[in-house]
């Protein structure tokens, strides 16, 4: 049964991620136009496309950091964004830096501890962030979104700098979030070990116009 926004009752689609005719303009350039997709709870979507095509902009737009040029987004509750920046204070220990966000989200200390053990970085909890390697930073980012209670996870290249076993570990965390009724939209060049129900391929607009 395909669930378009018009064919389902309103209360049923409130927990869907819906992009309805989204267009995005950055500077003078239109990045994408009239983008439509729906992700139901428990579903994951993969964003692909060449560099600079607007994958990060789409994620930032859904996160509410950019205004859409046209169209609208329906978000299933709160959102967690994982992009290339840490958003963790460099000179503080991992646990302290994470617990700042936990406090802001009204989460408990246990949530932070659980996130640390799920991401396999419990042993680093006393280490200041500035000593972290690339892979450890990715895991810390993952712990940061894990400890929120956000339904929708927006991931921008989450597997960059991770080794094979770390990618598997991340796959387990992502799968658990999906099983829990969460939604994931990820932009990644590295294959992620979860099943994607939806694949959105963004193409440069000039190319699109010439082929039509």
């Amino acid at each position, binding site marked *: 049964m395909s669930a378009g926004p018009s064919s389902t009752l309103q209360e049923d689609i409130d927990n869907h991620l819906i992009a309805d005719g989204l267009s995005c303009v950055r500077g003078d350039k239109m990045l994408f136009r009239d983008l439509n997709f729906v992700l139901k709870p428990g579903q994951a979507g993969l964003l692909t496309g060449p560099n600079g095509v607007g994958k990060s902009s789409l994620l930032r737009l859904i996160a*509410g950091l*950019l205004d859409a040029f046209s169209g609208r987004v329906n978000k299933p509750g*709160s959102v967690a*964004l994982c992009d290339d*920046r840490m*958003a963790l*204070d460099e*000179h503080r220990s991992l646990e302290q830096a994470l617990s*700042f966000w936990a406090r*802001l989200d009204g989460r408990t200390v246990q949530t932070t501890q659980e996130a640390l053990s799920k991401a396999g970085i419990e042993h680093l909890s006393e280490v200041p962030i500035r000593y972290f390697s690339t892979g450890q930073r990715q895991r810390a980012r993952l712990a940061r979104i894990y400890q929120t209670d956000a339904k929708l996870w927006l991931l921008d290249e989450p597997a960059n700098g991770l080794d094979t076993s770390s990618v598997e570990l991340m796959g387990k965390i992502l799968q658990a979030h999906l099983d829990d009724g969460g939604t994931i939209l990820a932009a990644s060049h590295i294959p992620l070990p979860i099943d994607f129900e939806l694949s959105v391929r963004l193409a440069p607009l000039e190319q699109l116009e010439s082929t039509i």
Partner: protein
Amino acid sequence: MIASLSALIWRDVRQSYASGGTWLPVIFYLSAATLFPFAVGPDRDLLLQTGGGILWIAALLATLLPLDRLIQPDLDNGVHDQLIVRGLTDEFIALGRLISHWLAFGPPLLFAAFLASGLMGLEGNPLWTLLASLAIATPALAGLAVMIAALTAGLKGAGALGGLLLIPLAIPLLIFGAGSLSDQSGSALLFLGAVSLLLVAITPFAAGAALKAGRE
């Protein structure tokens, strides 16, 4: 909302005091006050007459020192974006920054002014007037710093531009603040309070608008 605000303020204040950045304006302030008697000579009457004004100018210059630490680091490491994703507004974040910056800037500056006025030979009423005028003005100086830091965030040479922006905006504070030292009626302090309230009131909106515009 209140819980988010206090979490934000606590993080910023803790960071300012822990990084030692809070004491930089204090040391600068004391250095300026120490240099002045060397420059004009140890004439007690002259120091008494001009000392208050010099301490006021030093306070304005000390405002410039923390500009690059106020907004830019949070934009660079994504903290600001994460706060926006959580539904906080730019104005709310700017309000938190104003309060936390004042907590890290105002009390140490007043303490430094107290020490420095000893070097100028200020005592009794002139000393208390100076401290009262600085106490009234420090929220406005903190507000100006947050506004300018938000406006110049991401620009090259933000520091120099910050100085140029501060000078015209701080003139009313300087006129009424330094003026209160020679004013017996107390009305200069009232005007200073009015200017200070105005600057504090527009800071969250001006800084918030600058942050929002910078995100596009």
